[in-house]
């Protein structure tokens, strides 16, 4: 489905712009300006408002980024469990820094705050799927799934 069809499918949901953004983002991995403008039209709000919504939430990105979004939890429980080492390992593996995307467009590295898997810290998610008790050793096989 192209992004216009996706957005249109949420038109009857009052306030459904966030659902629509999630749906488009699961395909495009970010929210291009055209998508924001289309959503504004469909949900009958000014573009400035739709842009305000898109830029408010951590899970949305208005800038292009890698296809597979790796998010490392940095909240206090994961922080004390060794999130910093996981960060270093991922930066090393992928050759990019936090906040960047790989040149081949395959991965984006971001921080996230708590994702609610605190029984198994440190935790990362890839495209929303949680990976538990992560450490430097387990990173390569996690990434392999997405290459």
């Amino acid at each position, binding site marked *: 489905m192209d992004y216009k069809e996706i957005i249109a499918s949420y038109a009857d949901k*009052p306030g459904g712009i966030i659902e629509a953004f999630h749906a488009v983002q699961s395909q495009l991995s970010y929210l291009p300006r055209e998508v924001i403008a289309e959503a504004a039209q469909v949900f009958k709000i000014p573009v400035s408002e739709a842009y305000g919504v898109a830029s408010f939430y951590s899970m949305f990105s208005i800038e292009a980024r890698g296809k597979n979004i790796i998010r490392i939890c940095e909240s206090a429980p994961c922080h004390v469990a060794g999130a910093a080492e996981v960060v270093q390992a991922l930066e090393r593996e992928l050759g990019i820094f936090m906040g960047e995307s790989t040149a081949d467009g395959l991965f984006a590295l971001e921080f996230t705050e708590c994702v609610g898997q605190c029984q198994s810290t440190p935790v990362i998610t890839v495209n929303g799927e949680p990976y538990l008790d992560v450490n430097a050793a387990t990173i390569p096989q996690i990434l392999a799934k997405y290459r």
Partner: protein
Amino acid sequence: MAEEMRIVLRNYGKIDPLKIEDYIAQGGYKALEKARSMSQQDLIAEVKISNLRGRGGAGFNCGQKWSFAYGAKSDVKYVVCNADEGEPGTYKDRLIMENDPQALLEGMSICAYAIGAKQGYIYCRGEYPQVIDILDKAIEQATAKGVLGDFNIEVRSGAGAYVCGEETALIESIEGSRGEPRFKPPYPPSQGLWGKPTIVNNVETFANLPAILENGADWYASIGVASYPGTKVFTLTGDINNRTFFEVPTNTTIRELIYKFGGGIPAGKKFKAVQIGGTSGAFIPESQLDTPVAFDNMSAIGATLGSGAVFVLDETRDIVDVAARIAGFFEHESCGKCAPCREGTARIAEIMENINDGFGDLSDLALLKKLGRVMSVSCLCGLGQAAPAPVITTIEHFLADYQAKIL
């Protein structure tokens, strides 16, 4: 001596959460039937008598809140479940939704009947896509079975904003706006979602209702501490042997949680501090461990029951570093609407980073305390009001740790 007692998690591990027949076989939806046989006033009175108080952090009397919405005159009313669960260290609501979603639906339906609502929303955080799937399936099954009657439930997704755990910010988010809290009054039970009377309750709060209706308000009110009866699900993280969850009556003490249920501190280390209630909770030293976990008891020691997260730190932990990380959390999560929080959380984070990196001085501590005093009473919502607490309580109880970094 408290034992684990499962009320909201009574079906955990005993049923297939994706089979409504399992839930019904366990007696599911009998409570809703009973509720619907009562008058709305009687039902609300029953919930009031049980003294069930909100399990999301605010601790407001559930029945009391419902009575405001019931009394509000409107054709349209809403029941909203706060499943945003953004509090670091907390995953109790995920446990309930993943393992017994029907309990949540039944609880919401009981509320809907009580206040006269036909539409409900579960606002589930965007970081839980698997949970959203489960909820969608559960609703599908409940609808097909006809148990919800004329009450419709829809799942809405969050998108990564801790502030959306605040009820008015959550409402703004369902409405498709930026998740920025509204000033109160008006309160949601009189003017909430799309301006209509709305009840916003936490997952765990709703999940208690079927048992309360089945076993009676008096039964519930007699469990745990009278001012905050029932059970609470706690999730233990950090330096703890049993990094898992427990549901215990509210008269359990913190010490019991950590040592009896939690199995104590790993590798024979000594206890240093525990942060209860989530990332805006107070850091509690050893001297206060015999406090019962109930809401008012915690308030009395300047702490919060909050979401029930139990984050334990052992003697080796750099508590200033932990507090600095938490300060960074609040800077990131502040919605930015009100000046003291927007600027204050950033300043706290900046000062804590300085101290943590060894560039702080004593005047920084005075400045942090000033920010704490001001933000805790003047910010627009609970996020800003509570944000300074981890820093302030660690300065209070662990001043030596700060001094070590400063001097």
